[in-house]
């Protein structure tokens, strides 16, 4: 079945503030939605609404044409969300973090961990506690986690934060491969990650 994510006239209020003013979009398999906008325009709020973590005051989010609220567990099962901060424990090693993070979702073998870490450039420091890693290395652990989760829909909040040039390329490559396999990506970005092309949509929040 063809998967799609659709936002219908999403309005979100944060206290007295009207954050999202009727966001509309439709995203199909093999497409990337880039969410741009200045700081404080609600990029993160939009992503959290799409995840089902925040409830919009008006409008709905549709996954494969049905309201996600109807079957949240199934929707969450096909979604991977990575926020500003990678959900990592400082006292666990990078490898342990991945094992416990992704393991809750799917069965993870040693091999899977090796592959994911290798792809994210994590060899050499994967047995070190995360507290000793740099912000960029943590972000790479998060990227390894993203590929491990095995979700079809990726929702990424500023995926290139703290990364060096090579790391940013890695993100672009991962997203490229993911949509090549028929995945869907929603990413909040500061600078445009991809030039506008057939597979790339863009919404600018104001």
């Amino acid at each position, binding site marked *: 079945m063809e998967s799609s994510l659709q936002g219908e006239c999403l309005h979100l209020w944060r206290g007295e503030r009207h954050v999202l003013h009727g966001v509309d979009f439709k995203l199909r398999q093999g497409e990337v939605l880039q969410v741009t906008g200045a700081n404080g325009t609600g990029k993160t709020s939009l992503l959290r609404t799409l995840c089902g973590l925040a409830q919009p005051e008006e409008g709905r989010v549709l996954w494969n044409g049905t309201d996600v609220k109807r079957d949240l567990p199934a929707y969450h099962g096909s979604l991977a969300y990575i926020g500003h901060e990678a959900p990592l424990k400082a006292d666990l090693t990078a490898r342990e973090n991945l094992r416990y993070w992704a*393991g809750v979702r799917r*069965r993870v073998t040693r091999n899977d961990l090796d592959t994911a870490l290798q792809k994210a450039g994590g060899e050499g420091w994967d047995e070190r506690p995360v507290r000793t890693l740099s912000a960029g290395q943590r972000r790479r652990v998060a990227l390894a986690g993203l590929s491990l989760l095995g979700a079809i829909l990726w929702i990424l909040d500023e995926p290139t934060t703290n990364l060096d040039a090579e790391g940013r390329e890695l993100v672009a490559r991962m997203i490229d491969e993911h949509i090549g396999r028929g*995945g869907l990506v929603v990413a909040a970005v500061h600078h445009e990650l991809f030039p506008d092309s057939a597979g790339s949509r863009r919404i600018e929040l104001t």
Partner: protein
Amino acid sequence: MNTAPAPASALDAAQLILQRDLILAFRKRGQIAQPLAFFAIVVTLFPLAVSPELARLREVAPAALWIGALLASLLALEFLFRDDAQDGTLEQYALCGHSLTWLLFAKTAAHWLMTGLPLALIAPLAGLALGVPPGSGSGIVAAVTLGTLSLSLLGAIGAALTLGVKRGGVLLTLLTLPLALPILIFGARATELAIRGADFAAPLYLLAAFAVLGVTLAPLAAAAAVRINLE
């Protein structure tokens, strides 16, 4: 996505969470040691404050043990969800497709294994310092085991509700303490009967009933509170 990975069952997920939390607790031992040390100190203060006379100490022993255990459990509750909420782990749990209720139950169980169970195990030892006959040890362990289990579950609701509050420790205590009173009453009663060598089954059953009620309802409430805090 042609090779979809095998999904983890809810049981696998709970097992991983349990394992993870135990590993984390052993890496920062302070979290396990602090409530125990607190309990030991509170209980040993009683002979100093009341009188070193064993007969009188034996009378206040149930009160001393239970107030100590109650406060130590409350002290430990703050760690229950706080770290995971701060680093986004709870968010990932809420988005993993498993029931959040079940995952929080696993977390609470891990928390109890690290705080409540050790308390129950050292309670008879602390009781010895208060002149409690060694024969009543099993009754004390049973009562404190059930009592701390209920406290952990009850505290999970409070901990989840106060996630959004900065330095919510005091609020958490104020919120949980009044609700914990039945546990204190029946726990102390069971302990008192055990010390006297009488039949302590009745209050123990009531404690067990609280624990069962907690197991069934507390994770549901905690999950609802966590969801509100994530929004």
